[in-house]
């Protein structure tokens, strides 16, 4: 009988079943340890209180030597980022005077992702270069009344910073911080700084290939960073609110880690983007999609010569058809703007060989033959072919005639009139 009892006891213990009294004792013990301040932030995260007992906040400061590796790059490489590359990737010429030394790399952790005047940034991190190192300051609110002294400190820290580098800061971190400064009746110094939002830059280069442009994904794919002991962003607000109630900061360790990694990635990404653009012909981008993104970006910025140059390089590689087609399209449009007619004819002809049903190429080419190359026979052939091709087949899956087909028909008639007069 007693064997059976022991066995049951063993089984229960193995399953982790706790008896009532034991459970109560453990809860009480936990409450006591929490109350004694054993799990307060200063015991969990290395740092110091700035201020005194009546007014202050918690600050964790870390200096990273310039050769600190972050994924496949070192932080110091950000100091080599060239202003023209920053301006190009941001698609913002205001950033043409960017200097890494006076920039600040900024990120916040907040009580809510929806925004609004009641959302608080309880952890504000700022990284900046300080001669021999990259310094990271993580300012933390131990409770709501830490906000004012924290913001006063940040205000001093922001002084003299002419550019703020963020990830999605334009629509999230910056407006939120502005709201916090307004609520505390303080001027918001970063309003006069320029903004380099890496989310937008990342989308320009990598959206096509990677899809998800969240910082963690970009960081993993582009910088080969692996995080250990991270916490999902969505859970962060609740962790801080829990800490306020329990004074148990253990779960916040992961939040500080997450926040630190985010800011280090800002510096590393700035470096990576500029490096990719530095290598000749965009070779810094080793994926065809990324190189096409670069061509597109140059096109957006009206750098048509660069479009032709980078495009030509891309076409020499083994790229898949969709990429080649878009590249040829951009080159066709760029050479038209540059009035480089032979190159343009070449681009549209190649595009049609690749994708015979491309109406833009057909139209551009028809115009070219009719008006510039004065090759009416070729123009007639092209228009007749187009009318035949689309008249018989129309838009796949639809009875509607193709819009624009009428134009081709009119053009064909006009060319034929010219020819008969001719």
């Amino acid at each position, binding site marked *: 009988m007693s064997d059976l009892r022991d066995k049951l006891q063993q089984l229960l213990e193995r399953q982790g079943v706790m008896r009532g009294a034991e459970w109560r004792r453990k809860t009480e013990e936990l409450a006591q340890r929490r109350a004694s301040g054993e799990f307060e932030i200063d015991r969990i995260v290395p740092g110091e209180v700035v201020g005194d007992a009546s007014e202050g906040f918690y600050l964790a400061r870390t200096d990273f030597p310039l050769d600190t590796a972050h994924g496949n790059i070192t932080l110091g490489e950000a100091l080599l980022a060239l202003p023209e590359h920053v301006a190009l990737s941001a698609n913002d010429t205001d950033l043409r005077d960017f200097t890494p030394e006076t920039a600040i790399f900024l990120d916040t952790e907040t009580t809510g992702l*929806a925004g609004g*005047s*009641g959302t608080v940034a309880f952890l504000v991190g700022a990284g900046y270069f300080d001669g021999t190192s990259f310094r990271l300051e993580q300012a933390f609110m131990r*409770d*709501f009344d830490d906000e004012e002294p924290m913001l006063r400190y940040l205000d001093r820290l922001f002084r003299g910073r002419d550019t703020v580098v963020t990830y999605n800061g334009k629509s999230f971190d910056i407006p939120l911080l502005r*709201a916090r400064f307004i609520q505390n009746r303080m001027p918001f110094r970063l309003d006069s700084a320029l903004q380099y939002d890496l989310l937008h830059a990342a989308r320009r280069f990598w959206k096509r290939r990677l899809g998800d442009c969240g910082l963690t994904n970009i960081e993993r794919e582009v910088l080969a960073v692996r995080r250990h002991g991270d916490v999902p962003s969505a859970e962060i*607000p609740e962790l801080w*609110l829990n800490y306020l109630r329990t004074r148990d900061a253990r779960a916040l360790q992961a939040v500080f880690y997450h926040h630190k990694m985010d800011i280090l990635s800002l510096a590393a990404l700035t470096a990576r983007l500029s490096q990719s653009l530095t290598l000749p012909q965009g070779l810094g981008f080793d994926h065809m999609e990324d190189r096409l993104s670069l061509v597109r970006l140059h096109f957006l910025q009206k750098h048509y010569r660069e479009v032709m140059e980078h495009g030509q390089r891309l076409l020499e590689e083994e790229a898949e058809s969709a990429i080649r087609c878009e590249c040829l399209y951009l080159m066709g449009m760029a050479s038209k703007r540059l009035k480089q007619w032979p190159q343009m004819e070449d681009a549209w002809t190649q595009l049609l060989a690749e994708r015979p049903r491309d109406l833009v190429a057909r139209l551009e080419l028809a115009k070219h033959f009719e008006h510039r190359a004065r090759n009416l026979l070729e123009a007639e052939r092209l228009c007749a072919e187009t009318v035949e091709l689309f008249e018989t087949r129309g838009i796949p899956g639809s009875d509607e005639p193709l819009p624009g087909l009428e134009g081709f028909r009119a053009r064909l008639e006009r060319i034929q009139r010219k020819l008969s007069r001719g």
Partner: protein
Amino acid sequence: MNVAQIIDRLRSDSDFTRHLTAWRTVPAQPARYAGFPEALNPKLVQGLQRRGIQNLYTHQQEAVEAALAGENVCVVTPTASGKTLCYNVPVLNTLMQEHEARALYIFPTKALSQDQVHELQDTIEDLEVKIGTYTFDGDTPGSARKAIRQAGHIVVTNPDMLHTGILPHHTKWLRLFENLRYVVIDELHHYRGVFGSHLANVLRRLKRICSFYGSNPQFICCSATIRNPREMAERLVEQPVRLVDNNGAPQGERHFLFYNPPVVNAELGIRRSSVKEAVRLARHFLTRDVQSIIFARSRLRVEIIATYLKDAVRKMGKSENLIRGYRGGYLPTERRDIERGLRDGAIMSVVSTNALELGIDIGSLDACIMTGYSGSVASTWQQAGRAGRRSSVSLVVLIASSAPLDQYIINHPDYFFGQPPESATVDPNNLIIVASHMKCAAFEIPFVQGEAFGLDPVSTEEMLDYLSEQHVLRRVKDKWHWSADAYPAEDISLRTAAPGNVVILDTSDHGRVIGEVDLFAAPVELYENAIYMHQSVQYTVDALDLEDRKAYVRPVETDYYTDAQIKVELKTLHTFRQETCGEVAKYCGEVSVTWLPSIYKKIKFGTHENVGWGEIALPESTMHTASYWLEFAGDIDQRLGLEPNELSQALNGLANTLRQVAPVQVMCDISDIRSAAMLRAPLTQCPTIFLYETYPGGVGFSDKLFTHQRQLLEAAVSLIAGCGCTEGCPSCVGPALEVGERGKNGALKLARIALGLPDPQVQAGAAPE
């Protein structure tokens, strides 16, 4: 043919006049003018004159002067009396002088905001000044929002958007709040009951934010005619308000007719359909080229009437475009189109829901037909105001339906014409409502100890501490901070009758939402297997998910309807006021109401046979709310010579009637109040009738009912006594099937006793003495 000739024709048509219960003539009123106040910017005066405004009416002048002197103003004048000038003039005058000044306009609906902005923009264009006027509501594209926040001198919005989209983001609206000079609240009478109680709290939040940014705006309100406009305005803005009601706008002679369709089934108290009567009359107007507006109480009725009338004009060989329907949700361009059509005669009849009762400018018409009583004296006058040109005769006809309230009004024209309109009610300190807005306010700016939000500072602190215990707020030293990972305004709707409506989804149509009912009505109407009627289509309920607030239905065709048996238990918790009046006592207080749905019966249409039943498997639900109750003496049955079940029928009959006539005294919707009758109330063991509010905690209706008990009972007596049915019908105490054969008579006796009137039969019996 003009209206005067139509009126002569009708007067001599005995088939028509036979069914009239009233023919009143409201004499013409000439215009009364006053000059522009001297303080006005001459450029503004010239601009107005260019727009054809040579003079102000007396009420406009008084309102403008008071506003310019810094007073809060409430303007009360009838439809189409030029009330927008009352606020536009002082606002524009200030904005022309101070370029940074800002104004906020609040309208109850998006449609009204759009119209207002168009008119303002035209005026501003004439003035040749740069004053940015924009609507900011759910339809405003994201790209435009930033510009509006920065450069909108006049921001036009609605309470819901102010509540969820502006106040919680006040730091983005810095320029507006730092420089806010005027808050304009138009259609003030619309904000009664729950909606008004919410708005008062939204305004508390607005003022709190303004004071944070150092501004202190003035309020200018406009209201249709209600009994207590100034009281309403003062309860909403919580500051002294000056009333302006010396209407100087001219008005032509107006004929107001009450028409009661003939009875077609005396036993059931059924009259000829008000819809058909309305169509008949409207057709008459059409053949004589008289422009008219026809009001109907539901979208469906609007459709039906419009269809009939289109048929009719087609038969006359005219274009069916002469007829237009008008419901909520029309686009500004469509409304412009209707306006233009009415002006140039391309449209002869507009059929509308009460959407047009609000101040959308469609100009004035020759005639107005109301299909059914709108529910209040105030809105009836609003609707009537749609007919009436400034210098010619106009005609208004109210056609009653069989509903009890309609029958009461149509048979008591003196009541309607003699009474001032109803008084509107709000209770900004309903605890649920005030607590909801305290959360929003704490999200906007932390509370500081000593601050008062509606309540006194001590009660405010008590509420804040309570919210802290719920971990919604967090108290640190002398401040309370919002401390939850959520956005409080999103979960708080300003308009629902109860917190959390149940939406009805049609599963046969990809879960399309076909309607919603309040949480407390759901167990009564949407239990499993219930037949739910929506726009004359029958649906059967497959499931009711009270937790997720959803009911899943699909259309069916059956020859029966379902009727739930709900056991209602009522307990009185607190008595706030009580008074003995003769034989009865009246009370006002707090009650707890518990519903327990038990079974439902299937009842065949036409024959009312019981063709089956089923159980309702729903939990009971309980609510604390405010109530008014009327208590009879314990021995009332013996004194009236009634059996207990007869007394029960009488109590039920009177309870039904009182609920139906409650809107006569209190400006409320029939769904705002429910009734319950108890043969033996708990504690007192006395026969009691309860009229309780459907919003938890109540919003002030019960207090009004307590105060106006006499008028309420008088209305009930004359409704029951005046009804032609023999044993009760849906137009008075309810159908005899429900209240029993002696219900009608008994209800009448009870009401007379409560009024201290002698009972005719008792009196007859006691005559020898």
